[in-house]
């Protein structure tokens, strides 16, 4: 009787192996082209600030603190979806820079008025040139940058509660801790 019992368990065992593979697959991202920027200094740029045109924002602004750079645009529905999460992060004291990508200044300012402004400053990248240097494939994307201005992490697509809790916040804590 024993062998026949084993025989009928085979489909279940095969399925469990498959499920384990699929579970592992969920953690992988097949479309991720590994970003060569990670571990490298933030690409150089100088762009006008969104609200205050007289001000300039550049890669040197990232020095000395752990910050996020969020690439966004008003035409991007997913950015709208992640906006409340950015607001929440800002309230928790995370420094967030914005890169307003291929956008119009008026639209962007109106957006920030309506939905709130989580950014300490926004680089206004009207033609998307800087975005290309940063390897932006689309919006939204979020970079984590450390005190030395080195890119530590890149999140592709809208932020989620889970990504923030599991990746972004622990990384920020760790980077802050490294400093002392």
């Amino acid at each position, binding site marked *: *009787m024993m062998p*026949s*019992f084993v025989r*009928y*368990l085979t*489909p*279940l065992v095969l*399925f*469990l192996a*498959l*499920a384990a*593979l*699929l*579970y*592992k*697959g*969920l*953690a*992988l*991202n*097949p*479309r991720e082209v590994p970003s060569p920027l990670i571990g490298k200094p933030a690409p150089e740029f100088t762009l006008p600030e969104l609200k205050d045109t007289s001000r300039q924002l550049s890669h040197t602004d990232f020095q000395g603190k752990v910050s996020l750079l969020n690439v966004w645009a008003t035409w991007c*529905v997913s950015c*709208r979806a992640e906006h409340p999460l950015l607001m929440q992060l800002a309230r928790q004291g995370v420094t967030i820079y914005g890169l307003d990508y291929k956008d119009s200044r008026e639209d962007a300012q109106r957006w920030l008025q*309506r939905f709130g402004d989580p950014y300490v400053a926004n680089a206004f990248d009207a033609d998307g040139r800087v975005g290309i240097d940063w390897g932006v494939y689309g919006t939204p994307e979020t970079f984590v940058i450390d005190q030395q201005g080195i890119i530590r992490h890149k999140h592709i697509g809208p932020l*989620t509660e*889970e990504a923030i809790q599991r990746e972004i916040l622990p990384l920020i804590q760790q980077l802050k801790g490294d400093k002392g």
Partner: protein
Amino acid sequence: MIPELGHFALILALCLALVQAAFPLIGSLNRTPSWVALARPLAWGQFAFLALSFAALVQAFLGDDFSVLYVAQHGNTQLPLIYKISAVWGAHEGSLLLWALILAGWMVAVATFSRNLPREMVARVLSVMGMISIGFLSFMLFTSNPFDRVFPAPLEGGELNPLLQDPGLAIHPPMLYMGYVGMSVAFSFAIAALLGGKMDAAWARWSRPWTLVAWVFLTIGITLGSWWAYYELGWGGWWFWDPVENASFMPWLAGTALVHSLAVTEKRGAFKRWTVLLALLAFSLSLLGTFLVRSGVLTSVHAFATDPERGLFILMFLCLVIGGSLSLYAWRAPSISRGGGFDLVSRESLLLGNNLLLVLITALVLLGTLAPLLYDAMGWGKISVGFPWFNAMFVLFSPLMILLMGAGPLTRWKHHSPPELLRTLRVAFVVSVAAGIAAALPLLTGSISAGIAVALSVWLLSTLLAGLRQRLQRRSGIKGLLADWKAQGGRAYHGMWLAHLGIATFIIGVTFVTQFDIEKDVRMAPGDEIELNQYLFRFEGAAPHQGPNYRAQRGTVRVFKDEREVALLHPEKRVYQVQTKPMTEAGIDAGFMRDIYVSLGEPLGGGAWSVRLYYKPFVRWIWLGGIFIALGGLLAASDPRYRMRLREKVGARAAGKRFGAESTA
């Protein structure tokens, strides 16, 4: 207000599903008739609420209510009416709602057309379907609510993906879902039988028509999808071995095996454990397809929006449904009685052989689909499996399958003496080998693959004709054959006949189009002429053209053969107003023996374009085969036997026999 109503209806449907999953099942086990009686009204209730919810979403699209996020993403005021409706299931959230609605539709169908089934059985089947419904409804409500609002509402929506703005694709997903979800009926029957501990010929007879109908929908859905890819994607391909396509093909293969295995279980009482396993497998593969398409673990040309959170949810659901059912199987299967024995040369053996081959091919398609994931997970690198591999696997195994397929219907159940069988098959064998050799001669095609394909196709055809002749002799001529249509088993036989003919047609189509199609990418200025396989293509330039919600460059290509104009084609390059993606609309001259296919590439300046020209012999036969197979399945499902025997059984029940006591084979 209406979207909230839709959302609310969805929640109510989930509540009903919860009740339906528990009470009728428990009632059937501890014999509480009032709980058992809940099954049917609950199924209807769920259907009503889901229909309401679906109507609310349709209304949101028709009324351009962009305060609903899903409508804002996929709707648009400029969309033609039909695409406003098909946009409802054009993306993830809405297609799930359609899925749930169809599931409820199948429940109602089971509740309605099972008046003659034992009440406990119906209750269990509907309970299992209720459990599946819980999974999908909670998935929708927790991760993918189509009624989520966006504030403030945009003035214009993001528009349905232009690729999907096509009549073929408007009905392709509903057909496919009818098939996927329909497999849940066979699944639920199997689970109900495993729970009840009675698995007999009656069980097979009940699930057979349901399985057939679901399988027919799946066939239609896949055929439509292939046809759509052919004329809409502009590459002239009809099958790409893309993960999404494979996701629909695997349940079809398992379903095909199931349909045949059910026939054996019904007629001979054999293969019971195998049949149950196939029933579980067919639906499990449908669910797996959903996971692969929506979780983002695999890249695909036409994947849905992907999200790991959704992926995790579906995976958990998958583990519950598939893991649970396979555990139940492992526990109960050993107690299922063995059916009648059979000899090595018998219809049972041949059908079993075919079943094993079908499952083997399913496993191979699964392997090819998941290999990139496996490599990635193991850290062996990022790979993709080329379609030559899938093609090679098919070329390797399908000839064997077709040999068995031809011989099967001519072989007797239980035992057939080998010399006698060889005598029956001799003529068909000689005819098909001769036809194959003739076709392979340099005079005709000069291709060995074409010869093999013709031989296999003629083998199928001649064995089918031999079978028909036998039947004519037994039924005293044509008149008897007509009577067949009313008698039990007649339509099932003719359905089989038609479906197998479809396979023969399909083989010819596939082989000829892969062996002899001609493709040319060329630069053509106005007035340029190019010759392709005796056809002369003259490009007369492209001019702007305005569609309802797109602008296009519309090319004019005249095709001549022997100085005579045979076709005037207008391939287009469209740019939709909202999603400014360019879209290729091919110009096709369809024919029984060949298609001529022209698509525009890009403008190259000075009125010249890059143009793609194709000559595609016998390509229509592929879909013609699909149509035959689907019609055959429908014919078989309409066999009066399924209704007749059920009535007999009701008589038996009335006479005091308890459910499950009948063991007629």
